[in-house]
């Protein structure tokens, strides 16, 4: 369609490419909608429980109960004091859902960051060196792809969960607790302590991160491989730009698009995996909660207290939809050819 490309070739002329990405993203209504949802969930998870407690005086260990027909009742349906009802121990579900949200979101982000680091390093190495190194490295990825990794993760979590976590994980957890407590004492909040639950969460980051880098490695390697032979890299080489300059000025900015998009899409898939493990009782464990573990608890009482599943499930589903919408929006924004007609 020669005539078409030429007449509209003026689009966004004079604007930087980055501005183009942002403006395309802003024009994508589902993606903007997703961003708002995600922002709301994040804000609610970050300060929701504190604000809610301050407003109502209810804290997460507050347990109301009443006696009906001679039986002790602790599961209350949604009401003004308990917007999402209470769980079967009588704890406020609104608090639990957004406290769980912190863990779910953190697991998603941390595991994605781990998979990002491994994937980019591995893929870039393979793509940059090419040849035999690339062949061997990618063959290994192909093999790992064929492994039923969720089964392996199930085995890993059941073996190394809690206090059985490897020492390295324990040390990182302790360092994290130390830093957090330093910050907490500045803010005047009560300190947290290391526990098997915390070890479990940190091992979860590692377990999920270590199995979800494969696709990232493939994407990065493919990008690097094709970019390496692009004319503009050759042009840069021909005017004497150093390898360092080529990697940081040309390769990294050009692969950042697909990498950001895929990293965004890794977060929801990792969160799903976390929920899956928590559902099996192998993920986040008491006293901590995540959307997955809350939903798993809710399933037990599905017939009697359906809100105990519906609210954690709903908030989690909405967050995942939002993340997927944002990921799709970013992909379209980075690569306008991919979906727009």
């Amino acid at each position, binding site marked *: 369609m020669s005539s*078409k490309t030429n007449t*509209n070739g003026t689009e966004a002329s004079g604007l930087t490419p980055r501005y183009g990405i942002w403006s395309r993203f802003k024009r994508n209504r589902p993606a903007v909608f997703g961003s708002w949802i995600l922002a709301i969930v994040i804000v609610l998870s970050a300060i929701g429980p504190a604000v809610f407690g301050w407003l109502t005086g209810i804290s997460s260990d507050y347990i109301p109960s009443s006696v009906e027909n001679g039986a002790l009742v602790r599961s209350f349906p949604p009401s003004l004091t308990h917007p999402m009802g209470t769980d079967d121990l009588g704890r406020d579900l609104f608090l639990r859902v957004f406290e769980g949200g912190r863990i779910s979101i953190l697991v998603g982000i941390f595991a994605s960051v781990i998979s990002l680091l491994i994937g980019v390093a591995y893929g870039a190495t393979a793509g940059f060196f090419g040849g035999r190194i690339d062949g061997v490295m990618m063959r290994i990825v192909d093999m790992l792809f064929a492994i039923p990794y969720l089964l392996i993760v199930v085995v890993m979590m059941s073996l190394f969960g809690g206090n059985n976590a490897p020492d390295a994980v324990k040390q990182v957890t302790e360092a994290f607790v130390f830093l957090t407590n330093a910050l907490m004492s500045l803010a005047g909040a009560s300190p947290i302590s290391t526990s098997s639950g915390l070890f479990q969460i940190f091992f979860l980051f590692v377990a999920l991160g270590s199995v979800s880098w494969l696709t990232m490695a493939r994407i990065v390697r493919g990008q690097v491989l094709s970019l390496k032979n692009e004319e503009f890299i050759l042009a840069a080489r021909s005017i004497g730009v150093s390898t360092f300059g080529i990697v940081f000025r040309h390769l990294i900015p050009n692969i950042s698009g697909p990498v950001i998009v895929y990293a965004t899409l890794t977060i929801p898939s990792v969160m799903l995996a976390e929920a899956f493990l928590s559902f099996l009782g192998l993920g986040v464990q008491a006293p901590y909660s995540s959307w997955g573990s809350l939903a798993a608890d809710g399933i037990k009482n599905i017939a009697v207290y359906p809100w105990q599943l519906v609210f954690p499930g709903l908030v989690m589903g909405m967050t995942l939809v939002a993340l997927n919408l944002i990921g799709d929006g970013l992909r379209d924004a980075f690569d306008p050819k991919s979906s727009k*007609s």
Partner: protein
Amino acid sequence: MSDVTTKTILEVLGLTVSFEQATGSTKVVNDVSFEVLEGETLGIVGESGCGKTVTVLSILGLLPETGTIDSGKMIFEGRDLAKLSVEEIRKVRGSKIAMIFQDPLSALHPLLPISTQICEVTMLHRGFNRDEARLHAVRMLELVGIPDAEKRIDAYPHEFSGGMRQRIMIAIALSCEPTLLLADEPTTALDVTTQAQILNLIRTLNPKFKTSTVLVTHDLGIVAQMTDRVAVMYGGRILEIAKTSDLFRAPSNPYTKALLKSVPDPSVGRIEDLYQIPGTADFSVVTHGCAFAPRCNRAEQSCREELPELEQVSEGHYSRCHFAKEEYLSNQSKH
């Protein structure tokens, strides 16, 4: 060339096509009229983006979703193609009017064997059964010069070279013996030697099937070799239309002249001496007046304000320029 009768095969009248964009709709083809006579080859020539491909695609209703025909008639066998229903135009496509495309590498389905792609057409339009279609397909492939056609008919497109694939495209296009062949830059994607072979093939096969051709190209050499008449397009409009010999002898539009001047002539001078039309072909800036005015060396105030009409300068030779007559006569005085 061949005996040119006056019977008109296709008559395009005032065709206007616009494309929908984020910024609004743009007219890509503007009030284009021409006719194709029986047995002739009409060239449509112009820079990329001038609307020549869109013109041809509109004839078969193959515009992409963003494009629409705003007005105009395309009379073929007494019917207006623009008004035909989806079903009716389908019966015309491939059987009466066939088309070959620019890039033979992507125009054939990569996952279907050649046999399927040829047989499908004749089974659909000519009611052949599987065996007849296959027999016919082999004959067509032999005709377009595919060696070992009988064996290679079940091969896939990727097993053929670019030139071979364009031959296969031609075989598909001609297999229903269409009255009109639309060729959209059929050789642009091919190397020079293959180009010549493909053009020769089109030139020899068309008389055989009594097929008229509309040949879209940006290459004036091909125009000179292949066409009986030629239309020069710029900015979605026809600026000049004439018999090919007339056009080359007496170009009557400054744009045509500029085009002819910018063809490299190996016998003269160095590349620096090659004539360039000043400016770039940005059609979107011209809202009224002559589209070529911003780049034209003899443009005057009137050119920027008032769109010139297509004016007849001699028998069958029209030019869209305020100075068409003068331009025409200036050639006469030279010779």
